């Protein structure tokens, strides 16, 4: 080979350095997410670990409905009532949210065209942009009197109010993921079904829905994750009293709301402070579990 050619091939010119530079920059951007997640995890763990090792009674923590961390003679740390309340609200919220969101997604993905479709998508995304404290405000000032009047109950803050608010808050994300799931179903499936004489609804019900099943499941799970994680709106809509709810009008207290409301009033490093971080660790595991499940299901979609 001509030696001058060899030099050209080996030269580290400006483009070479730029390329390398970008690669390194992107690498740091890429791993920053991991760094932050691990960092937060370690911090929460460090703060909560003292409580878990010294003060926590596992049975009491999960099975007692009594949350009395400030009691002078005998503090108890039971999160059972809060878990029950959070779970109840999440289930009810999903029961309200899923049919509407999936219905909306079906309309957007299968029926709506052109302008209608774009307008709807923008409006639904707009719903996602409303800050959660505004939702809490709506819960307090609109839903509360509405529930009191409609159902003739003494208080409108509680499971039903929170579930309605949460359903509205989760709707945009569930709708847009469900819509993606429908979009991922190949058009050839629809054509094949229609060529067999299936009506629009039969095509959706018998072919598109089963094909999008996994995506819909993961949409639902993400909604559940939202339900467990939502704090501010639920703090305002729940009534915030420690109580195992037995009816939809009962007040309850959410795990997240407890942390938000109490953390500022505890002495750093005290058992109470640490117990709140223990709740944080518990929430961490729950959302981690939900996201992992959703992820596995989505991966199933890609394979199938």
């Amino acid at each position, binding site marked *: 080979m001509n030696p001058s050619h060899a030099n050209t091939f080996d030269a580290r010119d400006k483009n070479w350095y730029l390329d390398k530079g970008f690669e390194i920059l992107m690498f740091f951007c890429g791993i920053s997410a991991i760094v932050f997640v691990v960092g937060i995890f370690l911090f929460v763990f460090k703060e909560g670990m003292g409580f878990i090792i010294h003060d926590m009674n596992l049975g009491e923590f999960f099975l007692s409905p009594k949350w009395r961390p400030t009691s002078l003679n005998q503090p108890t740390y039971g999160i059972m009532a809060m878990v029950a309340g959070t779970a109840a609200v999440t289930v009810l919220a999903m029961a309200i949210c899923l049919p509407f969101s999936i219905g909306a997604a079906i309309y957007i993905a299968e029926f709506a065209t052109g302008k209608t479709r774009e307008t709807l998508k923008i409006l639904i995304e707009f719903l996602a942009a409303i800050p959660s404290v505004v939702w809490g405000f709506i819960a307090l000032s609109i839903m509360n009197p509405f529930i009191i009047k409609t159902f003739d109950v003494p208080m409108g803050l509680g499971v039903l109010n929170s579930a309605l608010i949460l359903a509205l808050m989760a709707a945009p994300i569930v709708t847009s993921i469900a819509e993606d799931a429908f979009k991922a179903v190949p058009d050839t499936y629809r054509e*094949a079904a229609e060529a*067999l*004489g*299936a009506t629009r609804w039969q095509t959706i019900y018998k072919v598109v829905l089963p094909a999008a099943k996994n995506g819909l499941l993961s949409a639902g799970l993400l909604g559940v994750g939202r339900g467990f994680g939502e704090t501010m709106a639920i703090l305002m809509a729940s009534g915030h009293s420690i109580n195992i709810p037995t009816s939809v009008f009962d007040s309850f207290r959410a795990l997240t709301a407890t942390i938000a409301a109490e953390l500022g009033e505890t002495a750093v490093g005290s058992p109470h402070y640490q117990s709140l971080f223990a709740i944080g660790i518990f929430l961490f595991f729950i959302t981690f579990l939900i996201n992992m499940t959703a992820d596995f299901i989505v991966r199933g979609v890609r394979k199938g």
Partner: protein
Amino acid sequence: MVSNKIEVKNLAISYGGKQALGNVSLEVRSNEIFGIIGPANSGKTSFLNAVNRMDMMRPNMQVTGSVHINGIDTRSWRNVYALRRKIGVVFPLPVGLPLTVYDNVALAPRLAGTAGSKADLDELVERCLRRAALWDEVKDRLNHLGSLLSGGQQQRLTIARALSQSPEILMLDEFSIAVDPVTTMRIEDVLKELKNEMTIILVTNLVQQANRLADRTAFFLNGECVEIAETEKLFNGEAKDQRTNDYIGGKFG
């Protein structure tokens, strides 16, 4: 008895103002295999879509002219679903719906509400799979997902599915694109048998396939129906149009 199953008059199809097929008039006789050959973009698939009125699914597809099936104008059928049940369609790429093999074949009768008892349905599924020359390969895995079969098997599954409503017309759109030659020959044998029971429109990109199967063949080119004749005549060099001779002779396309 030779009668016209499908009569097409002055059919023109355009997509958003751009013409895909213009002024086609032809008739397809009962129990014949009617071949349509032609290079890509010649309007073959659009023709099939107009026959079973799939244009309803495509808002930008405009169809003018008329298609009569059994002497009835398809434009006048409000219930296009009933029309489509009379017409089986096989697509270029196999479409195994994400259902079990059994459910794939049983889908159409179930949708139409003509499924009947479990025993009837079992028998129907077996009969369709046998006629599509697939039964022996899948009889032990009727509960497996149809979309996991091999390409050639899926294409035969599509044919079995198309047969499940005993259609009067079977339309195949370049069915052998994704199928190996051996499977293609098996499907061709199936088609020769099916001809006794139904009318078949065979769109194909393989000129020799039309030669092997079709009774009469139409040559489409750039949205125009150049020529329709007995297949034998076309392949014996008796085509009237030079372009047909060139295409069949392999000079282009």
